[in-house]
């Protein structure tokens, strides 16, 4: 296979991972923001009413999810730097030798 073939093979994987993590996480985060504002006025609000507390709870759950996945990203960088890899074979992530 030529370099172009290898590059295209790598490129679509990067694109896929990028879309899932790089666009998916911000989407979850945006849902959190939307949830945060649940019950409050829209972008033309005049009363500045307090949002519904349930929205806030859901928002924090969503933010926590984003932070958790981002932290896994950091662990991933560190682990691969030390010749380790992240494994999900126990469902929760564990650090294993490469």
């Amino acid at each position, binding site marked *: 296979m030529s*370099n172009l073939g290898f590059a295209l093979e790598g490129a679509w994987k990067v694109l896929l991972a990028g879309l899932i993590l*790089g666009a998916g996480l911000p989407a979850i985060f945006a849902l959190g923001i939307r949830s945060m504002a649940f019950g409050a006025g829209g972008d033309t609000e005049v009363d500045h009413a307090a949002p519904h507390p349930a929205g806030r709870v859901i928002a924090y759950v969503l933010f926590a999810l984003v932070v958790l996945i981002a932290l896994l990203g950091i662990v991933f960088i560190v682990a691969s*730097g030390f*010749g380790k890899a992240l494994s999900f074979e126990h469902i929760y992530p564990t650090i294993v030798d490469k």
Partner: protein
Amino acid sequence: MTETTVILVLVVITALGFDFTNGFHDTANAMATSIATGALRPKVAVALSGILNLIGAFLSVEVALTVSNAVVRIQNSDGTPKESLTSDGGTALLLIVLAGLVGSIVWNLLTWLLGLPSSSSHALFGGLIGATIAGLGWAGVNWNGDGSKLDGVVGKVILPALMSPVIAGVVAAVGTWIIYRVTVGVAARFTDNGFRWGQIGSASLVSLAHGTNDAQKTMGVITLALIASGEWTDTKNIPFWVKASCALAIALGTYLGGWRIIRTLGKGLVEIAPPQGMAAESASAAVILASSHLGFALSTTHVATGSILGSGVGKPGAQVRWRVAGRMVLAWLITLPSAAVVGALMWFIGDAIGGLAGALVIFLILLAAAGYMYWHSRKTPVDHNNVNDEWDETAERREPAGTAA
């Protein structure tokens, strides 16, 4: 001290100098959007990015000795230098590396002066390629690999450079579009503050990834020079002082901040709002991490620029200054050949004079060029005070007579 030792010291100083320029050239990749939207004050942003680069550089323990192997043939496959280049005590190889580094730094400084976010990796590879062609001829360069994996100048440098900005741009555009769809109608008091926090988080991730990716290139080059001159023999590890000094150099460079480039990326391309900033940095972080995991070498600069452009494309009604983008693409195209020309020129000068004197002369040329460009930059300083000033495109254009206010 022998002549070789003195040349080695010059190589180490120059390599750390390159690492430093690598730092300030790339501060913008992570922090331009956060500075532009006011999520972080400029000084806080560069300090945070510097610290994360420092940490990131220490986390990169993978041996980066073979980093130059992908493009030039000055090493064996285990990372040791070719014997033919070390027969004279290593000066032949040291001269190639020194000339290459000078080419990289000169190009990095010139593009910084022009405020263009060019790739530091391309500058480094370009400089080394140029010096290698000068020293060893065309066959000294690994143009296309051997067809068994993504390799060579084409596979490791050119193709990723063409593809990565597009990938990052698509991801950022999709992310931006989704964010605006999801939060349509939500009051600004919720969106602006929330997305600023998201931006800070994603920009931090980019800084960390930058430290791990870029600092190790310089570590590899310095270790190669140490092995060539017989000061180090272990090809599996790098000396701790090399790691520490490279980490410090890139962190200090990042902290200094390439304000000119931050301004171009943060204000010049797109007027960035916090949701776009978050989408752009998340896209950059995801693409950089995914590709380093898959061994798809790319430049953080190309990714960051593609992401920011994408965030402009993805926001309904946003304006993208394609003229600025065009200037950047032009800079990307000529970075590798330009650094190569300077690298080759430096090798010819160094070789013609020969020995220690030759190395000293090209080192002095570097100092003179750097000093001149720094002096030139002081005429129109860009720093943390004016980095966010309104982007006035007419100021760059040749103004028709009579229209200047």
